[in-house]
């Protein structure tokens, strides 16, 4: 248990390095959107890191950034086409934030700082660790924001065309909760800060 915790939250891209906050703050209004975004980032991260690691000897240092951005943009465009084909609702819900992943600093940062100087296996493991950490944290924030902000948990709605199920749990509906402030980006910042504080504190206790 402690090993898993450490694997996920030591050097977590969101909680420790505060990278890639754009998608964390913008699209986490429902649980479903957040975990799908997390999965997309996990896939893109792994693919990018492997490709970067393969071509690390060919690419000169001066032109690294444009080359990596082209790699990331290619993979994201492929994913974008897939999503728009299989789940138009989700594609609409993500809007600009899906193409914006191209300049997401989690992806670019881990390509630049890790995969460009390590072996294929190492960079795959690093990508897996970062991506899983990102996935867990973005899901936690999306879950809390939707639970507190709109009083329900959407597990499958926009992807129901693919899976054939719709699954939304209604939790509260009274005066106190849902509380609209958690749907605003200000509330997202407050929640992110709280989650960050709590997990850092737990992590420190572990060491």
């Amino acid at each position: 248990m402690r090993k898993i915790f450490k694997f996920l939250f030591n050097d977590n891209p969101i909680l420790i390095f505060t990278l890639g906050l754009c998608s964390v703050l913008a699209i986490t209004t429902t649980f479903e959107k957040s975990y799908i975004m997390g999965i997309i980032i996990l896939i893109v991260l792994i693919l990018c890191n492997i490709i970067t690691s393969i071509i690390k000897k060919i690419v000169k240092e001066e032109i690294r950034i444009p080359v990596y951005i082209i790699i990331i943009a290619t993979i994201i465009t492929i994913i974008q086409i897939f999503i728009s084909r299989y789940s138009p609702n989700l594609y609409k819900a993500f809007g600009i934030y899906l193409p914006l992943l191209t300049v997401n600093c989690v992806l670019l940062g881990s390509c630049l700082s890790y995969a460009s100087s390590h072996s294929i296996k190492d960079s795959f493991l690093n990508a897996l660790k970062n991506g899983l950490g990102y996935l867990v944290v973005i899901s936690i924030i999306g879950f809390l924001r939707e639970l507190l902000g709109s009083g329900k948990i959407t597990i499958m709605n926009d992807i129901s065309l693919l899976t054939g199920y719709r699954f939304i749990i209604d939790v509260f509906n009274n005066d106190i909760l849902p509380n609209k402030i958690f749907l605003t980006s200000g509330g997202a910042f407050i929640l992110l800060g709280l989650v960050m504080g709590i997990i850092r504190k737990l992590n420190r206790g572990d060491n």
Partner: protein
Amino acid sequence: MKFKVSNGPFVKSSNSTSKMMTRLLIALIPIICLSILKNTIIVYFYTDATLLESLHPIFMIILSIITSYVSELLYFKFILKYKIADCIHELSKSFSIIPGVLLSLVLPVSTPLWVIVFGAFFANIFGKMIYGGFGQNIFNPALIGYLFISASYSSLIGSHLNLYELDTLAGATPLTNLASLNYVGSYDEIVSGYGSLLNFFVGSIPGSLGEVSKMLIIFAFVYLTITKTIKYLIPIFYVGTVFVITYVVSLFTDMGIWYPIFHILSGGLLFGAVFMATDPVTSPITKFGQIFHGICLGVLTVSLRFFTSYPEGVMTSILFMNMFVPLCDKIGLSVKNNLKKVWIYILVIVIFISMTSYFIINKISYKEENKIPVNILETKKEGDKTIYNVSSKGWGLIKATVTVENGEIISIDITDKSGETQWSELEKNDYANKAIEYQDNIDSLDAVSGSTFSSDGIKNIIKKILESELNNEK
């Protein structure tokens, strides 16, 4: 010979923090007394409210103070893990009574009690303790609580009118009334509904608990300035800037000197300027920094009043300017070191003020041209009936489907009301159906008090559709 080495300050003033806070409370006491007289005693004797209902404002103040203390105690005890004796020692140095009182004084009279508990808790924990307690906070804690309440429970806090005023006055607070008139109008339209400007000065107008009596606030300002408790430059330049800008606006729109005075005396401007903008922790220290801070506050408040759908703007601008306190101090220091630089900043200030006035005048004169803010999105004909899809400007945007038969509206179906904060008031009154009944003489239908904007939105839909029907017949 031995020298004793110690850190500054070596010159001690008699102005200790606890004395300053006590003076602040003394200055607040008459204001609290007047608000209790106005909102409790008068309500009890002149309406048929029960004792418990009329005591509501007192409960609000007391509960807010208690929650402030309790939430700080909990933070000290369970997050910082102090011993009980240390907790009490820390509490006595932390002055949590001030945010408690101020929060309850800026809220509307009919706020539910549990909302205040949440607000005070949020104010003290997230506005103050998380930053490190008294003296470390960037933002004014009371305003953080106010922001939290107005962002999350805006539909519950109700109107600013107490029960007595609900009986005697039709409509809303003076500033909401002004906003619904598109910021221009005659003295009769804007002021006379609430008596005269003297009523504004004494405090017999609707408003939140503490802000109504400008006379007592000015007394408090004089007292606090004489005892050197607050930084008097900020309120003077704040109010002065609001006066200058609205005076320029009144000159260009043929309104008298009463218009700027109305702007100063209505809403929470004076209260915010004296008690919140001068908070010792969250305001600049340097002289010129304070002047600059005050002027920026004035420009922001006027812009918020004229350009957004929120008619107040004082609290938001104070919170916003709290972020720029270090910048103001930097400016103040650079001016102190090099007096020639003052001209640059005066130029900046003049440009600020004239641009704001220009845009306001531009906006007001533009608004007069298209009067009914309703868009017809789609028209369909089905036999005798015509179906319109319209969007109308209420507080946000109301979208509705309207069915018309033989030039008469027979049904209104509201499809989108998510932007409206006070919609429940309209539903209670069955306002849409009432508006259909009154369609031949829509101006005689009164707006629902507490949600004037949404009512006007519905009225405008009917006006616009009847107008377009007339055009079609021609």
